[in-house]
């Protein structure tokens, strides 16, 4: 699909001719349209609410489009051309788009995806219109404005819906646009976004570790370019694509990242960025993948979903149990294992935990919760029995003893593990977080005052053992893997200390009131 949107101010005339575009639709939005298009093109715009639609142009009719915005219409106006998937023909058949004296030819790279090619066409359209300043007033036909629209449009559909207003705020060229549209036009503009969106469904097939960087000025700036992209992750490979069709004085580069996530971020950050005076166009290039790389990409997606949906399963389990628990018991799910960026930092409160030096870090437990469990043992046990079914390797049977003040229940330790795989989905308002932290800290303090001296194999007074430091890696996937590694370490350390006691209970549902013996 090829699209073009731009704005017209008073007395702007845009003219372009397009050849061999098999299906062409034009849309215009804004106030009543007074274009004189019908004379030249033979189609009259049809009214469709706020936007005007013109019927498809017949194949090979070489439409010439002339739009003229009347001075009296002081609203935002723009029009939009797009061709359906058939526009692909435009690209592959080395057809040309003719504007004035300029001829441009398109060549398709073998195996290029539709997306890549369409981007090329898209920017070419911008380019050609840019060349036609003599037909339009210079104030409007700035290439940056045109491309900006595309940024807006594309980012809206990328990964679900975003309100256009939010995209609007994000747009770098906002000031430029604000000067350009007054408030009344702004509303129209936002409305028009809904009409103008180029819709695309993103699947794993469209993504790739390879990204194609177009529009790099041919100034020998490869080093700078690669340095810029390396900010977003390790680059495995890069080279210039000499064969690839490019605009004059620009080069096309192919960069292969080590990780898909890095490519994702790099694309997001670098697309439409200015680089040595030229706008970069960054897109995925899955067509450069080898079979093995495609396979790995699919495998990674598989793993990611498996992991993410397990989290959800835990989440579901919790939700079911939710009502059974007392409000205070809920607090242990709010433990600092959330993998989502900032919440690690905000959740992490070392004072909630005391470490037992005799065993491992794993025996650390939220001391505040111990008191809670004593207050409401049946709920708590029931709860942990179910959860431990998920963590069979961590469960074990111990004689049910009366929970003494200082005997940390096994379940506490398990609870620390369970949320490790569910942190992401749980929503907690920040105020609740803060309250919880405060409460835990207070109870922890209280507990350490009253209970610590009785049995020092369980609780220790004094400085805590250093926990494995938790750092926000500033990246969701990095955080996830860091959490995973931490958990694994804990699990391993734990299994060493408890392996003697846990052999036969691995599959059976654990009995109620199980307790951990340390």
């Amino acid at each position, binding site marked *: 699909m090829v699209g073009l949107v731009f704005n017209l101010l008073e007395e702007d005339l845009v003219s372009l001719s397009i050849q061999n575009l098999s299906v062409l639709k034009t849309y215009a939005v804004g106030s009543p349209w007074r274009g004189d298009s019908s004379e030249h093109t033979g189609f009259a715009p049809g009214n469709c609410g706020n936007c005007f639609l013109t019927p498809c142009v017949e194949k090979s009719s070489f439409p010439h489009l002339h739009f003229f915005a009347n001075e009296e219409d002081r609203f935002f106006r723009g029009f939009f051309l797009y061709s359906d998937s058939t526009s692909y023909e435009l690209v592959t058949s080395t057809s040309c788009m003719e504007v004035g004296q300029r001829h441009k030819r398109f060549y398709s790279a073998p195996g290029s995806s539709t997306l890549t090619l369409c981007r090329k066409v898209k920017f070419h359209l911008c380019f050609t219109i840019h060349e036609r300043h003599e037909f339009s007033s210079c104030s409007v036909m700035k290439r940056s404005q045109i491309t900006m629209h595309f940024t807006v449009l594309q980012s809206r559909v990328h990964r679900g819906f975003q309100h256009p207003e939010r995209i609007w705020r994000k747009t770098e060229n906002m000031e430029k646009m604000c000067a350009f549209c007054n408030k009344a036009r702004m509303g129209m503009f936002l409305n028009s976004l809904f009409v103008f969106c180029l819709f695309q469904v993103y699947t794993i097939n469209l993504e790739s570790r390879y990204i194609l960087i177009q529009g790099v000025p041919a100034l020998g700036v490869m080093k700078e370019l690669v340095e810029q992209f390396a900010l977003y992750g390790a680059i495995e490979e890069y080279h210039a694509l000499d064969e690839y069709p490019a605009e004059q004085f620009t080069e096309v580069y192919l960069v292969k990242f080590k990780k898909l996530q890095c490519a994702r971020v790099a694309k997001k950050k670098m697309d439409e960025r200015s680089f040595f005076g030229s706008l970069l166009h960054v897109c995925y290039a899955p067509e450069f993948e080898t*079979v093995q790389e495609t396979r790995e990409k699919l495998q990674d997606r598989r793993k990611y979903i498996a992991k993410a949906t397990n989290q959800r399963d835990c989440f579901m389990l919790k939700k079911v149990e939710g009502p059974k628990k007392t409000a205070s018991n809920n607090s242990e799910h709010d433990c600092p294992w959330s993998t989502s960026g900032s919440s690690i930092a905000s959740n992490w409160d070392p004072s909630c935990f005391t470490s037992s030096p005799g065993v491992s870090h794993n025996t650390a437990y939220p001391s505040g919760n111990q008191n809670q469990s004593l207050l409401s043992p049946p709920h708590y046990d029931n709860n942990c029995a179910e959860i431990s079914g998920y963590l069979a390797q961590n469960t074990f049977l111990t004689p049910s003893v009366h929970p003494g003040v200082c005997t940390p229940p096994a379940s506490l330790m398990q609870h620390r593990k369970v949320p490790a795989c569910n942190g992401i989905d749980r929503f907690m308002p920040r105020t609740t977080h803060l309250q919880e932290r405060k409460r835990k800290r207070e109870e922890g303090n209280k507990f350490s005052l009253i209970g610590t001296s009785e049995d020092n194999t369980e609780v220790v007074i004094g400085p805590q053992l250093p926990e494995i430091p938790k750092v926000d890696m500033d990246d969701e996937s990095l955080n996830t893997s860091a959490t995973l590694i931490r958990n694994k370490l804990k699990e391993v350390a734990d299994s060493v200390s408890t392996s003697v006691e846990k052999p036969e209970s691995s599959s059976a549902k654990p009995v109620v009131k199980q307790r951990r013996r340390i």
Partner: protein
Amino acid sequence: MELGRLEYLQALVTEFQVTDSTEAKEQVLANLANFAYDPSNYEYLRQLQVLDLFLDMLTEDNETLVEFAMGGLCNLCLDKTNKEYILEANGVEPIINCLSSSNEETVVSAVTTLMFLTTPRSRAQTTALPVVECMLRFSLSANTRLSNLASIFLQDYCSPPQVEEARNLSKHTAVGIPLPKD
């Protein structure tokens, strides 16, 4: 934001069902399919029966709707619950039909979806002889994305005898499922 998500998705689904405009339908479907990329939405999408909606759209005449629906299915079919649901609902058949689409994205999504849907139980269906034959043809395509996926399908999901059988068959019959346009 999290709280309003179900409501928002519900509004999208409603809009999809209510609207008469093809364009609005396409946009809403694209939105839903993009939501399906993120596993945290799966539960909501199941509640709203978006899976059925996607499956229904596969048999539409409008190619864009088919493409978006196929993309949506491709996005969510790795999840176990979703996978079982699609298999239960006899979703494999319309997906296989999508292999003959002339739209590149539809075909690519369909191939990937078939891979993701392959389980020991569904294997007979997803790697039926015509499918393997089709993959053999795709694996020779000039389109790298398609040929890569088809190769993976043949290597990882089909047994060598299956491939051999399909190869013999395709030698004799020239008619097959056409390659996507481009």
